């Protein structure tokens, strides 16, 4: 998935046509401790991240932090405006009218959290308008489950090819950039 793959970097790819085949294959690959460059699937396969050894995403934490920032800044801002900067008597309500501040605080919290998570996701995944990510196989988005193994050294290259073929992968090939 890397955008700018180094000159001499070699990768081995092969695809499966069923998620269960893929999962079995990944289990084998992990057993053999072959470095996985990436796995491409047409849809999310539950549990694949654990099997492939991916770390948990920190997007929720990001959302939580920004949500907190949102709520504090919204509530703080409204409090400042109504008690310090420009207090107005409105409908006989107190200047610091907490219940009335809640809805906006809530909305800003959600907005901040959502924006932070979405942009976090896009930035971390290098996705965005005009992003030039390499498409290894045009059928990934259809029904190909593609595994991409690192083949930095020739031994790795070989064993990668072997494992892929052995697990029933199709169109096993070496990819250079």
């Amino acid at each position: 998935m890397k955008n700018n793959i180094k000159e001499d970097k070699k990768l081995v790819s092969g695809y499966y046509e069923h998620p269960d085949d893929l999962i079995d294959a990944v289990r084998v690959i992990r057993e053999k401790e072959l470095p996985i460059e990436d796995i491409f699937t047409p849809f999310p396969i539950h549990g694949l991240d654990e099997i492939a050894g991916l770390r948990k995403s920190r997007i929720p934490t990001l959302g939580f932090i920004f949500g907190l920032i949102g709520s504090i800044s919204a509530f703080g801002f409204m409090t400042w405006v109504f008690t310090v900067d420009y207090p107005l008597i409105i409908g006989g309500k107190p200047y610091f009218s907490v219940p009335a501040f809640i809805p906006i605080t809530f909305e800003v919290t959600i907005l901040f959290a959502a924006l932070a998570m979405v942009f976090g996701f896009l930035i971390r995944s290098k996705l965005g308008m005009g992003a030039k990510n390499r498409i290894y196989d045009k059928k990934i988005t259809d029904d190909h489950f593609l595994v991409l193994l690192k083949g930095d050294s020739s031994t790795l290259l070989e064993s990668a090819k072997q494992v892929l073929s052995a697990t029933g992968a199709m169109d096993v090939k070496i990819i250079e950039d």
Partner: protein
Amino acid sequence: MDQTFEFKQKYKVVLAVLLGIGILSLVYSIFSVESGRIWANVLLNNIYFLAFALIGFVFISVHIVGQAGWHTSIQRIPEAMGSFLPVAAVLMAILLFGMHDIYHWTHEHHDPILEGKAAYLNAPFFIIRMVIYFGGWIFFGWKLRSLSVKSDLDPDLKYFKKSIYYAGAFLVFFAITSSTASWDWIMSIDAHWYSTIFGWYIFISIFVSGIAVIILLVIFLQSQGYMSHVNKEHLHDLGKYLFGFSVFWMYLWFSQYMLIWYANIPEETVYFIQRIEEYNFLFYGNFLINFFAPFLILIHRKAPRLKRVMVIGAIIVFIGHWIDLYLAIMPGVLGDKASIGITEIGLTIGYVGLFLWVVFRSLAKAKLVPVNHPFFKESLEYHNL
């Protein structure tokens, strides 16, 4: 898997002690506190424990109608909770003797507003409604329970299919009666006051505490070596309910409070003014304990998977919504003279004993899981996203 709960002697002893504490404090109260306070406490606990019974059936019915599967592994617990219904009915019947102490509208009055409400707020109609509520609830409860138990012996799907109809009908009946019952029994204490959201607010309040009781019972049974098939995923779901409905309770609490605060119409604000002035600590405490506590405890994804955290959360919610009801009932009955003492705590302990006795007895009568439920197997393989 085919376990059956055994109502062991040691449980009985403990529960008898609890019951004893309740009776002793009742006796104590009769001699030392005014009758209104006793009746108010009886009402509070009647409603609170009746609520668990009802929520038991509501929980089951919602899942049956929604064609959920995961709940089947714990289904027998809410069913057993429901067996408290007839006892609750008897207790409510006893309460009728204390009506005069609780409901001011039963007094002689020349209040034009109350006179306007007399067509609804009068003792005979009140009793008729109570009979209808209990009649309906007990009927549907009995049907749902017996269909479930019958399916243990006969794997035919007809019980399952029938239960869908009964569950649906019960929910409709409950949707109306839960509101009217809360108007009758709680809202009419402050006879002038009204709030359209009140019925739903009370419903969510008791629903959250009902979930808490289910969680506590599940974890208790697991600790006693039962229900080993119940895994973290199931707990996670119950935890999400506890979390989600606590937030929802806050939403309704806020909606009601904010709207009344905002419009500032005296006939509505009087309710909150009394509570803020005379029950200041509990009033804000109620909000903290029922919203912030479960919110902060359960917000982390992993939290609902940890039993200890769940137990703490459930106990807080259990106490919290008792306070919620306390705040709904006491100011109207006792004004500023209410307090929490031996009467309140002792009686509640007694009710806990009685409730658990009935529940355990019922739990022991059938298998701990509905083995023939068509979705039962799904429940075992159940995964949260």
